[in-house]
């Protein structure tokens, strides 16, 4: 048996899914969090059944790609749990009406039930159940209220099989139901609602946006630095380094395994940035340097997501985004990219046209540094002075903007206007924020840690075999001639294909000037996405799109790297 969770965007399907299946999926407070579909399973009586978290849709007549997915999936389901936002009953019941016309049993969850009271909404759930002819259960997916009752009543699910109607007839039916089950009493604006209005009006909105972004940046930087300075560095220097020095002696302070595991010693000491051993640099990069920033970034992003701030940013930045051929909602994948490019490129599916998806994915893969890259940039370039960090980020921002303007004028096709629902602000639950944070951090450790260790190991082997020297000789004209970097920097560029953080780390032993470091970081960020990003990019853009994106990438890197070399 297969159960589908369906409903309008941002009604809490993912939170619901996590509740009933115990599977962790990313839930946020904005429409379009789920772009693919997620499968899980739950126990129903004695039977193990499959549960699918279907992307949100307003109607079964497909309008966007996500909605197409939703209406297709309906063919293969055996039962629908229709999740309805109780604070927006009228609009949500339209989809319910469409579902009731299909040959599939339905149960309705009146979700976000806890919000109805203070918003002056009162719904007669029993009467609604009578009118719809299917079970109706008030629920609060975030806290779990009503979920058990709903699951218990799944066997009562029914399919009234109403005759197919025109949209007008459905709206009329919805209108009649609403007038019988819902009463609305006037309520005064809460402070959250006042803040809501202020953050969407141009003047106050832009000021709030500047404040939010500045605070977020500052918070991420302070939390990241704090964790590194007070926790990770002491752990590595005071606890791990002495252990590794013992191992170094055991291995006889040299030889193949010493070079692989411990790496090079500087003045008889381990340098976690430069030693390049699997157990030294290999562990320090992901855990000591990157993890603190991953934690900090996803904590802040999670808060912004769950409060519901991001769609407001989309509206405020819509004008700017139109200059680069996108509309405001593209800011959401872009922000996700500051964490990791893989989910960011997948999230470009929330954009309607092919053209927008191409521009957004290309810009993200070229000009957006992921949290791991940023952590390394802060660590390496930050040591030379904050102005150099600003130079790296400033250059990347200009690249994003200029490249976007160029793509907007050259890529054919059409970019539609923004059309989004802006969710109300919600006070996030700490439990939900921390659960989501853990899911993302665990994802990083699971995916990145093995690749980083492998990369460090492979680099060691390739050095020993002298392969890098051979490559460096061939590529020297570009690397030294155009970018003004020592020819060995090509190793970093090659490794960038595996992991950007390791690649940036490889710039450390080259004793570069501050200007060269800036060029190196910009070139590494822009040139070629890491392998994980490359795979999703290929999947989302198709072979031809990928080739074009790569062409743009190479051209942009050479031009920008060359220009920087002339200036710095």
């Amino acid at each position, binding site marked *: 048996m297969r159960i589908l969770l369906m409903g309008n965007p941002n009604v809490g399907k993912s939170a619901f899914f996590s509740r009933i299946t115990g599977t962790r999926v990313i839930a946020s407070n904005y429409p379009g969090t789920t772009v693919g579909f997620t499968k899980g399973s739950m126990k129903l009586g004695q039977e193990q059944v499959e549960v699918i978290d279907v992307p949100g849709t307003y109607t079964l007549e497909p309008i966007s790609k996500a909605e197409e997915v939703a209406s297709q999936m309906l063919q293969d389901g055996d039962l629908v749990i229709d999740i309805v936002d109780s604070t927006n009953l009228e609009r949500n019941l339209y989809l319910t009406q469409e579902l009731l016309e299909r040959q599939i049993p339905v149960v309705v969850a009146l979700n976000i039930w806890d919000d109805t009271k203070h918003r002056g909404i009162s719904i007669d759930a029993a009467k609604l159940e009578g009118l719809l002819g299917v079970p109706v259960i008030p629920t609060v997916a975030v806290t779990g209220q009503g979920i058990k009752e709903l699951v218990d009543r799944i066997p009562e699910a029914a399919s009234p099989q109403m005759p197919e109607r025109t949209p007008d007839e459905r709206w009329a039916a919805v209108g009649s139901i609403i007038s019988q089950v819902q009463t609305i009493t006037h309520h005064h604006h809460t402070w959250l609602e006042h803040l809501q209005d202020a953050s969407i009006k141009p003047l106050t*909105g832009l000021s709030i946006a500047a404040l939010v972004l500045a605070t977020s940046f500052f918070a991420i930087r302070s939390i990241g630095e704090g964790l590194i300075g007070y926790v990770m560095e002491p752990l590595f220097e005071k606890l791990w380094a002495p252990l590794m020095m013992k191992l170094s002696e055991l291995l006889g302070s040299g030889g193949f395994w010493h070079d692989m595991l411990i790496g090079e010693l500087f003045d008889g000491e381990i340098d976690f940035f430069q030693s390049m051993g699997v157990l030294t640099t290999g562990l320090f990069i992901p855990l000591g340097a990157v993890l603190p920033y991953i934690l900090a970034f996803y904590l802040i992003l999670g808060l912004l997501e769950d409060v519901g701030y991001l769609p407001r940013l989309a509206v405020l930045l819509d*004008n700017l985004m139109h200059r680069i051929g996108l509309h405001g909602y593209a800011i959401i994948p872009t922000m996700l990219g500051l964490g990791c490019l893989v989910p960011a490129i997948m999230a470009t599916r929330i954009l309607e046209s092919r053209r927008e998806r191409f521009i957004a994915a290309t810009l993200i893969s070229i000009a957006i540094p992921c949290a791991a890259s940023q952590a390394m940039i802060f660590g390496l370039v930050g040591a030379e002075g904050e102005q150099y960090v600003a130079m790296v980020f400033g250059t990347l921002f200009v690249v994003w903007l200029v490249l976007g303007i160029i793509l907007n004028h050259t890529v054919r096709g059409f970019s*539609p*206007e923004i059309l*989004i629902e*802006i969710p109300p602000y919600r006070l996030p639950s700490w439990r939900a924020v921390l659960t989501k944070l853990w899911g993302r951090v665990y994802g990083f450790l699971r995916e990145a840690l093995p690749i980083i260790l492998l990369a460090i190991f492979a680099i060691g082997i390739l050095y020993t075999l002298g392969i890098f020297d051979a490559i460096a000789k061939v590529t020297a004209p570009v690397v030294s001639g155009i970018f003004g970097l020592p020819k060995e920097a090509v190793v970093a560029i090659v490794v960038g294909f595996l992991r950007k953080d390791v690649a940036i780390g490889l710039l450390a032993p080259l004793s570069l000037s501050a200007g060269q470091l800036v060029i190196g970081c910009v070139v590494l960020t822009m040139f070629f996405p890491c392998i994980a990003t490359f795979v999703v990019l290929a999947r989302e853009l198709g072979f031809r799109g990928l080739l074009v994106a790569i062409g743009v990438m190479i051209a942009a890197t050479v031009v920008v790297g060359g220009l920087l070399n002339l200036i710095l």
Partner: protein
Amino acid sequence: MSGKSQITVNHLQAGQSGRVVQIMGGHSLVNRLNSLGIRPGKRITKVSAMFMRGPVTLLVDRAQVAIGFGMAGKIVVEVD
């Protein structure tokens, strides 16, 4: 015409409300707006508009919806 003035959403002041009379657009635009609850007969309130022909935020029932300036110009409302 009943003496009430019919204007597009772009001519509404922020804070002003009106009843949707007509959506002057193709099937696809009408469908997309309908699915967000913006359809003839519905009362909507303009919450704000960004400058330089930026998006317009509307209140439809209790939901806020942001739509492009172009779309907003195609929604005709009757001001009360």
